């Protein structure tokens, strides 16, 4: 039987227990990363997910090369993750209520946001607007994709603009923060949501702890940017455990789309 070592408490967990517990450590409750499709599987009503813009993929338009060309990195990421980009977009029902949904995948180049992530969020927001559906985005990202230079920075503006149009149509948008969500994604579509939910222990900040430590020349507290500190600081609405997420999302979707007696 394969053994998993928890990234947080370092204890052993059998793979069976780990998977069975939705990749939450049975010892310390650490919520480990899920792939986009794992997330969709535990969130959406069975069989209700249909994908949008599945084949869309990135282009190395700057011929960006650091220690490795961007084009090679894209290829490797596709191979490694089994998906074409750092976000999987589509439509799904949760507890019977239809919603547009984007799920970021940290396995794909650290969930970094380049043109494709921006465009897929736009497509999903437009899908929401067109069909009058609420929007859910599960975030997991190290920030903007540097290999697309300024164009990746512009995706922050692009996605915020799409969310603004969506909100002005009276549609609900919930953002679910998973570990880790930092940089350009934090500072764009993630934080303009109506409701921000976070998994326990998820890192959610703009500048990561290392960057801040370099700037202020001292150590940051151990809970820097973590869900619990963010809740205390009023930066998120609630912490929801992975096992309860589907229920909470279902209730929120019901509340926000339920207009029967409202004026």
């Amino acid at each position, binding site marked *: 039987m394969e053994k998993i070592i928890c990234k947080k408490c370092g204890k052993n967990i059998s793979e069976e227990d780990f998977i069975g517990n939705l990749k939450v450590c049975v010892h310390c409750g650490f919520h480990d990363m899920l792939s986009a499709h794992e997330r969709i599987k535990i969130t959406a009503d069975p069989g209700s997910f249909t994908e949008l813009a*599945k084949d869309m993929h990135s282009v190395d338009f700057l011929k960006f090369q650091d220690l490795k060309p961007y084009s090679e990195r894209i290829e490797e990421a596709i191979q490694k993750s089994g998906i074409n980009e750092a976000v999987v977009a589509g439509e799904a029902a949760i507890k019977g209520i239809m919603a547009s949904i984007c799920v970021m995948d940290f396995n794909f180049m650290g969930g970094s946001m380049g043109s494709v992530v921006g465009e897929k969020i736009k497509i999903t927001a437009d899908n929401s607007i067109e069909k009058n559906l609420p929007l859910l985005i599960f975030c997991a990202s190290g920030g903007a994709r540097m290999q697309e230079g300024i164009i990746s920075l512009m995706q922050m503006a692009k996605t915020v*603009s799409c969310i603004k149009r969506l909100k002005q149509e009276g549609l609900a948008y919930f953002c679910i923060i998973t570990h880790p969500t930092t940089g350009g994604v934090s500072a764009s579509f993630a934080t303009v949501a109506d409701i921000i939910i976070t998994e326990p222990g998820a890192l959610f900040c703009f500048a990561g702890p290392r960057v801040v430590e370099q700037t202020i020349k001292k150590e940051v507290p151990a809970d820097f940017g973590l869900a619990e500190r963010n809740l205390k600081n009023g930066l998120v609405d609630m912490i929801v455990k992975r096992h309860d997420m589907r229920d909470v999302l279902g209730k929120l979707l019901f509340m926000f789309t339920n207009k029967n007696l409202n004026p």
Partner: protein
Amino acid sequence: MEVEKIKNLHKSFLKDTLKSVFKIEKLKRITGFSGVHFNDAEKKLAEKIENYRKVEREAIKSWRIVELSRDEKRPHTPDYINGIFDDFISFSGDRQGYDDKSIITGLGILDGSTVAVIGHNKGSGIKERIEYNFGSSMPQGYRKAARIMDIAQRFGFCLVTFIDTPGAYPALEAEDSGQAGAIARSIYEMFSLDVPTITVLIGEGGSGGALALAIGNFIMMLENSTYSVISPEGCASILWRDSSAAKLASRALKLTSRDLLKLGVIDKIIYEPMGGAQNNPGRMIKIVKSYLKNIIKKYSNLKDFDFKTHRAQKYESIGITAGSVQQKL
């Protein structure tokens, strides 16, 4: 091959090259190894080195612009404000407990019109620069900016923003009070304005901290200013795992005015006086004033133009992708 000469090249780029050179030196020592095969390898290597040299030359050029964009002697936001507007009145504070001095906001008169102004303020002199976090803003700075945006919106004033920041301030206190959300909401707010927004990149355009105030209907960039998703140093230390590769990163990131015009991210380059704005600040300011006057006049005459939709469409069309386009479900 003159191995000495290529020692001047950057070490990260050299690693690969030097490996080849040593390989060739080794090959030379093998008796009977000569002729076409050897000449081919030499030829290839020469090409490679030439290519690296080109990269290096470009990197030096980009880096020179990075340095210029950070030159303390360049005119800064207060210089532009003083030189461009009559009767500028500055407003303070977020009304919630903080006045972030790294951002100036206020109203000024240009060509008889009232203009709303927001600009990064790096401060002059080391004491001020420390107080202003070297132009790196706290979340409260963006909230202060939002106040003047609201005034511009309600009173129909053109909004001009001057961008000059290394980026949002990466401090514990900033994170604890919602740096990410403050930037996002500032972008959101700029997309909500019905009035024209004009952005002038005058120095460093650092990442989210710059973008937060740079959602312009028209974006002008001084020749030697920069605009980038990350600082070259930051990029080098992440991607090259070597912060001394900053010059190479500055080239790769395509952060100069010429790069950005080509990429369609800015609308106009404002050329600087010979050698850079720092050589003739007075003239630089006059040039910017003249362009601002023109664009404001032009926008003021566009009576039925939908500046808000223009901004949304402009930014939402940025991005280069391949593969499937939107299939409807």
